[in-house]
């Protein structure tokens, strides 16, 4: 994957201003709310019965933070995202049994969270770089599936 200097700059500058804990929690909560069938992977998370319950659920928040922290690894290793996620890809396939389509859904939701957060600063150029990034991450996470 080739990243232009502009794309790298746009990605880094947005990431620098992101609260991993807040955005991660919000992105995961929205995944579970907007696409309720994704709750199938979190049956041991306790109360997911309403948007309010999901948003306030401490396990959702913690896991959201974990997921977005991991996403940070991609940002730090733009030139080797596949390698970065090799083990996680195997995990999602062999242990977690997550359909890779879910990675695309979460990626798109993360972008909407960023858009709501940054407003006009989340320019079309920003969105474009980030759509590319979430696409590459989703692809890398699906790469080791068999």
């Amino acid at each position, binding site marked *: 994957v080739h990243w232009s200097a502009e794309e790298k700059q746009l990605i880094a500058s947005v990431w620098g201003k992101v609260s991993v804990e807040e955005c991660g929690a919000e992105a995961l*909560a*929205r995944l579970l*709310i*907007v696409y309720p069938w994704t709750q199938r992977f979190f049956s041991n998370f306790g109360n997911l019965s309403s*948007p309010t319950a*999901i*948003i306030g659920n401490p396990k959702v928040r913690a896991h959201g933070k974990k997921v977005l922290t991991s996403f940070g690894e991609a940002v730090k290793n733009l030139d080797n995202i596949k390698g970065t996620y090799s083990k996680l890809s195997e995990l999602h396939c062999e242990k977690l049994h997550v359909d890779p389509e879910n990675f695309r859904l979460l990626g*798109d939701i993360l*972008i*909407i*969270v960023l*858009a*709501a*957060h*940054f*407003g*006009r600063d*989340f320019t*079309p*150029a920003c*969105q*474009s770089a980030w*759509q*590319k990034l979430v696409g590459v991450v989703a692809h890398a996470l699906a790469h080791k599936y068999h």
Partner: protein
Amino acid sequence: MLTAEDKKLIQQIWGKLAGAEEDVGAEALWRMFHSYPPTKTYFPHFDLSQGSDQIRGHGKKVVAALGNAIKNLDNLSQALSELSNLHAYNLRVDPPRFSLQFLSQCLQVVLATRLGKEYTPEVHSAVDKFMSAVAAVLAEKYR
């Protein structure tokens, strides 16, 4: 698919765009062309440079159609019937399932940038469902 609450939220949120429809439409299209270059293949006859009259004009059309759909949430099939024919027989955009996904994402990004916190998870969910419903209707006559 759309609950009464969803419908209410959609109408509310759309109401907040009053006056800005053309901007919203144009921006959504521009973002779509920028983030998903393959979508440009359906507009070889357009000037696709930023701010072009054609993008503005088309954005306005798209948003007007969505606005009409929102006024007829209880009968989307009928409200979108003409557009459904157009997309199926004339435009033959690859099944709306895919392309609307991109337009839906970009429209939602525009809404989110303008509404910030007001683009709550509940609103997000309602709008996402609405765009899915629109896509389903537009795809009805494909084959």
